[in-house]
């Protein structure tokens, strides 16, 4: 899985220029809408359908990368 693409999708989802792996996902930026936008984008890009509960449990961008890698 292309890590840079995932970082780009996270950045697009939370409407910032770029993000780093260490960025902490706070509730005000990582709400239920952001989570499904992220999943929808991953689905479009990689054909993956991820579990929203798993995605919502992520504390950092690195956690997201790990979850996506696990498929």
């Amino acid at each position, binding site marked *: 899985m292309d890590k840079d693409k995932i970082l780009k999708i996270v950045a697009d*989802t*939370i*409407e910032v220029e770029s993000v780093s792996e260490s960025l902490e996902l706070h509730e005000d930026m990582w*709400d*239920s*809408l*952001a*989570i*499904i*936008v992220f*999943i*929808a*984008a991953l*689905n479009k890009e990689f054909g993956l*359908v*991820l*579990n*929203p*509960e798993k995605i*919502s449990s992520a504390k950092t961008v690195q956690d997201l990368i790990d979850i996506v890698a696990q498929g």
Partner: protein
Amino acid sequence: MENNFLDEISEIMINDFWHLVGHKSELKDNHSFIKLKLNIKEIVIFNDNGTLVAFDNLCPHRGARILSGKNGISPITCPYHSWTYTNGELKIPSKKKFTDCDIDSADINKLDIDFCGDFIFAGFKPKMSLKEQLSGLKSTLEGISHDISERLDFNSYKFDSIFPVAIENALESEHVPTVHKNSLSGLKLQDGEYSFFGKNSAWHTAVGNEKIDKNLRKVLENFDISSQYPGYRNYLIFPFAMLSSTYGYSYSLQNFHPGKNDKTYFSNRFFSSKVKENSDFMDFFFEESVKINRQIFREDAEVCSRVPSESWSLEAPKYSRGIDDRIKEYRKTCKLILKGDK
């Protein structure tokens, strides 16, 4: 309460108008039903082996209420003497023993029923056709009804306020930043535009929170809907129903029915809209939306309880601004109804 005219208005509204009671998707199964209270009356809609029937929930035998609960699956059997309505017929135990009466004419007290798309309306003695009552809102509601997939929540309780106070609260947005500061205000709804369709009205407005608005747009392609509006909208479906939605991704149907002792029988139903294949992850979004919806209406109930019945009148509010136009129109309509103008 001081304003006794409210009882009269309630009676007229209950008896003379059609009421939006539900969506066909709620009644797909045989014996599924919805029950709504309107003051001392009740409306039940149920699935009788594929046919939707509306009645007053009273057994024609001794007048007992047949169904309890607000929705569910149950045969239409009176718990008192087991009179049962099924497949369009009333089955009466020991029927032959009823010799001193015209027992063959016994039937449940059916109410009028009509449809706008997949929305179900019922009425006790409506004075006009549903088409006339919905006026210019009919085609919009039809479109919305076809976008709805299923009911995900049915939440009901009493508002400690009279129903016009609860409805007027739903008709204005000025309270959103204070009453809903941790819920609906996050959308930063704009002033928007009001429109009127007979006694019904609508509010269409943009989502001012750019981040949320952009994200809402991004998931549009996951939905299989045709009646989409890129923002927030709500409709007063006169006399007692409100329908609201953000982007058409889900719908909240609220009924604000007159209740006893200056209360409002409130119910809110949350419907998801149709999603495309492989978009089941939207369920997560719907579940969160249900929670927020519940919070919003609790907040509304709390603030409405602060408005005593004496604070409401048929006159236009003394202090109002443009966004109160719907309240002015609503009160004008109530006044006309009281005068006998349907």
